[in-house]
C-alpha cells in the first residue's frame, strides 16, 4: 500500500479513487439482477496495445436485468496520432469525423462517470478494458478495478451447460464472434456495426445468456464471474 502510494507520481483522479475504493470490497453473493451493468464496446485503430488507440466508445446501461432505452453513451474520440491513414481505420468513420471529435482526455472521464458504480460487460471485453485502462492510467493517473463479465466466455459456458462437458469449443471457436452468436441464438440483429450498435447487440446477448443460464443454477454475481473465468481465450 505505502509503496504504491509513493510510487504514484501524482494522486489518481477522484473518479479512479472512488472506483477503486468501491470495488476493493463488494459482495458478489447477490443474484445478478441486483447489480447494474454497463455493456460497452470500443472501436480501435488496431489491436496493437503499443500504437493503436480508441476512436469510439458506445455503452448502454442494464439495471434490473433490463436494457434502459434512454441510458446510453456514445462518443467519438480524436486520435492522438494523426498518422492513422483511412486505410488503417477498420470502421467506417472518416478522418474528418474523428478530427472534429473530442480528445480522449475529455471523453474518458465522461465515460467513467456514465459507468458510475456499475459492473462492466462486453464481448471479448478484456481487450476493450485494457485499452480503457491504459488511457485511464495516462490521463487519470490510475486504473479502473471494475469486475467485468465477458459475453464471449459466458456464451462458451452456456454452450457447455447446454451440450454437456464434452462440448468442443475449439472446433467452433470461429463462431464466437458477436454477429455469429446473435444469429445462433436468434437475437434481434443490428445491421450497423459501430461501437454503439455493437454495445447494444452485446447487451441483448448478455440478457439472453444470463437469463438462460439461470436454469443451470448460475445466479449470483459470484457464479457468473466464476462461469466466465473458466475459459481461456487464445487470441
Amino acid at each position, binding site marked *: 500500500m505505502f509503496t504504491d502510494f509513493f510510487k504514484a507520481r501524482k494522486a489518481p483522479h477522484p473518479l479512479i479513487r472512488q472506483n477503486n475504493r468501491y470495488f476493493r470490497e463488494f459482495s458478489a453473493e447477490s443474484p445478478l439482477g441486483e447489480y447494474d451493468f454497463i455493456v460497452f464496446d470500443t472501436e480501435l485503430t488496431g489491436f496493437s496495445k503499443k500504437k493503436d488507440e480508441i476512436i469510439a466508445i458506445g455503452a448502454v446501461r442494464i439495471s434490473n436485468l433490463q436494457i434502459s*432505452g*434512454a441510458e446510453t453513451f456514445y462518443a467519438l474520440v480524436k486520435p492522438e496520432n494523426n498518422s492513422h491513414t483511412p486505410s488503417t481505420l477498420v470502421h467506417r468513420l472518416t478522418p474528418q469525423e474523428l478530427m472534429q471529435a473530442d480528445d480522449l482526455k475529455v471523453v474518458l472521464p465522461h465515460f467513467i462517470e456514465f459507468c458510475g458504480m456499475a459492473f462492466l460487460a462486453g464481448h471479448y471485453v478484456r481487450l476493450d478494458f485494457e485499452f480503457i485502462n491504459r488511457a485511464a492510467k495516462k490521463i487519470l493517473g490510475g486504473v479502473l478495478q471494475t469486475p467485468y463479465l465477458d459475453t464471449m466466455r459466458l456464451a462458451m459456458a452456456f454452450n457447455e451447460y447446454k451440450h454437456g462437458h464434452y462440448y468442443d469449443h475449439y472446433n467452433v471457436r470461429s463462431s464466437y464472434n458477436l454477429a455469429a452468436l446473435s444469429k445462433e441464438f436468434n437475437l*434481434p440483429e*443490428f445491421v450497423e456495426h459501430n461501437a454503439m450498435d455493437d454495445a447494444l447487440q452485446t447487451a*441483448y446477448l448478455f*440478457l439472453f445468456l444470463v*437469463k*438462460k443460464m439461470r436454469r443451470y443454477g448460475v445466479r449470483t454475481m459470484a457464479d457468473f464471474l466464476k462461469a466466465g473465468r473458466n475459459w481461456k481465450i487464445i487470441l
Partner: protein
Amino acid sequence: MASDEDSYSPPLTVIVKFLQSALPFNSLDSRALYRLARLCRIDFFPQGTIVFQQGISTVDYLYLIQQGGVKSYLKDADDEISLNDYRGRGEYFGALPIIQNTRANLNVETVEDTFCFLISKDDFLQLLARHREFSQYFLRTMSAKMVKNVYAEFRQHKISTKTESGLYLFSATIGKIAKGRLFTIPAGTAVREAAVIMSEKRIGSLLVTDNDGKIIGIVTDRDIRSKVVARGLVYQTDVAEIMTAPVQTISSQAVCFDAILQMMKKRVHHLAVEQGGEIVRMITTHDIMVTQGTSPLYLFREIGAQRRVSGLYDLSAKIYQVVRSLIEEGAKANNITRMIAVLNDHILEKMLSLLLEEYGAAPLPFCWLLMGSEGRREQTFKTDQDNAILYADSDDEVKNLRAAEFFRSFGEAVIGHLVKCGYPLCPGDIMASNPKWRQPLAVWKGYFRAWCRTPTPESVLNSTIFFDFKAEFGAVELAAELRSEVLGYSKREDLFLMHMARNCLASRPPLSFFKNFVVEKDGRHKDTFDLKRKGMVFFVDFARLLSLKYGVDETNTMARLQVLGQGGYIPESLGMELVEAYEFLMQVRLVHQLHQMDGGHEPDNYIKPGDLSDLERQTLKEAFAVISRLQEFIKQEFHLAEL
C-alpha cells in the same frame, strides 16, 4: 451526455422504428414516439417463462413483443386450462390489467425466447390520456364493460394530473358541475315578488311548486322579460301563468355533453338536475360555459341573438370550429353529427322565424321538411340542401291558392338565404324552391303511395331521400301523420321492399378478393374511393329498408340499427357490429373533411387509403367486411339468390 436530444442512440432508433410499425403506437407522432422510446426498457424472457400469473401478478408494465411469442391462458377453479390467445412480434400484453387497475387477468407464458419493450404503467396511462387515437384503439378492442372502467380510470387520472381539457365534455357529470342551488316558490306568487327574489339571490330561475310542494314548472328571467314585459301583463300576475311546464330535467349521472345537447334541442338555458327521482339542483348554460371554454353553447347563443337573417350568414361557418374542438376533445362521430344537426336546425329555425315575421303568418299550418342526410340527422359539413314544405289540407280553394303563392315566395327566399349561409343547392332540385316539393299533406301522401305501389328505379332512388324525412320546425304533427301512414303500409309493399333489397345488393364494398382497397384508377379522384357511396350508403340503405319493413319510426341510421337490434328484427350481434362499423366510417369521414377544411379545401368523401394510418386502414377493412355480412342477411331475409 446521453440525455442530449440529438445524441446518437440506437436503442431509441430501434424502439421508435419498431413502434412505428406496431398498432396502435403508429398513431403517435414521432416526437411522442421518441419520448416514449426514452421511457422504454428492454427485457428478455427465455422460452417457458411465466410472465403473468392470473390473479396474482401485479402488472407494472405494458409488454410489447419485439421478437418471440407468448401464449395467454386461463385456469379455472379445477385447474382446467383454456387457451386464450397467442401473441407474437408487434403485439402487446398487459394493457387490460393496467387500464382496469387489477392484477393480471390471464396467465402469460413465453412460447419462444422473447424480447419485449416495456412501458411502465404510469407512462402508458399518460399516453392513453394524452393521445385520443391511441386510447380509442384500446377502447375499441375492449368490451363495453371494460370501456366503462377505462373512462373511470381516465377520470381519476384527469383529476389527479390536470393536463389538457381532454375528455371533459364526455366525462364530467352533471352532478359535479351543477352549481345552481334550488329555489322554489308557490304557484300563487306574484311575478313582481318572483323578480325580487331572483335579483336578491342573483339567480336566473325559480322552480314553481303546487300546494303539495310538488314541482310543476319553472319561471326564468327570460319568461319575465318576454312574457310579462312584452305582453304588458300586470306585475301581480301569478307566476303559474307565465311559467314553463313541465320542467326539463337531466340526470345527475349524465355527462356535460348531454346537457348541452338537451339545452340546445329544447331551447332552454336551465335544466333541473335529478337524482334518485328528486330534483336536487339547477344547471344553467352559464355553469357549463364557465367550465367549458370552447362550448358549442356560445355559438348556440350567438345564433339565438340574431335579429336579421343576414346575421346568420357567417354563423354556419362557425359550426366547423365548434366541431373541431369537439373532435379534439374525443367526441364520437354520432355525437358530432347530432351536434351539427342541432346547430343547423337552430340556424334554420332562427331564419324561418325571422322570415315569418317579415312575410306574416302563413295562410295554412305548415312544417319544413328535412330530407336525406339532414332528415337522418347525419349531416357533416356543407351537406347539400334537401328540403321541402308540407302544409295542411284545406277545402277552401282561395286559401289553397294563397297558400301556394305564399309558400312559393317563402320557399324561394329560404333557399336563397340558406345558400348564402353556405348550404349548397341540391343538384337533384329536391328543395322547397321546386313547386313539386311544396305540397299539401294529401299530395304528399299520394307521392309516397305511388312510390311504394309502382316501384321504378326512380322511386327506389327517391325512397333513399324522401323516406328519411323529418320535421323540426312548424306544424310537426303534419309530418308525424305522414310518417305513420307510410309506416302503416310500407311493411306490406313486398315488391317495393324487394326492389330496395336488390338495390342494397347491387354493389360491393371496395375491397378486393385479397382484402385490399379498390380505388379509382384514374380521373380527378385517382387512388381514392368514395367513402359515402361505396361504404356508408350500405348501412344507411340497410337501416332504412328494415325500418320500413318493420315500421321503425326513426330516421337516424344508428338509432334505426339500435331499434332493429334491440327489437330482435336483426341479430343483436349484427346490430352491434353495424353500429360500430358505421360510427367508425362517420368518424373517418368527419376527420377527413376536417383536414380538408383546415387546408382550405372543399370537403368531400374521397378517401385515399394511402393517407390513412395502418390502424385506420385495418379498422376500415373490418368495417367493410361487415358490409358483406349485412348483404348476406338481406339475401336471406328477402329470399334473394346471388345476383
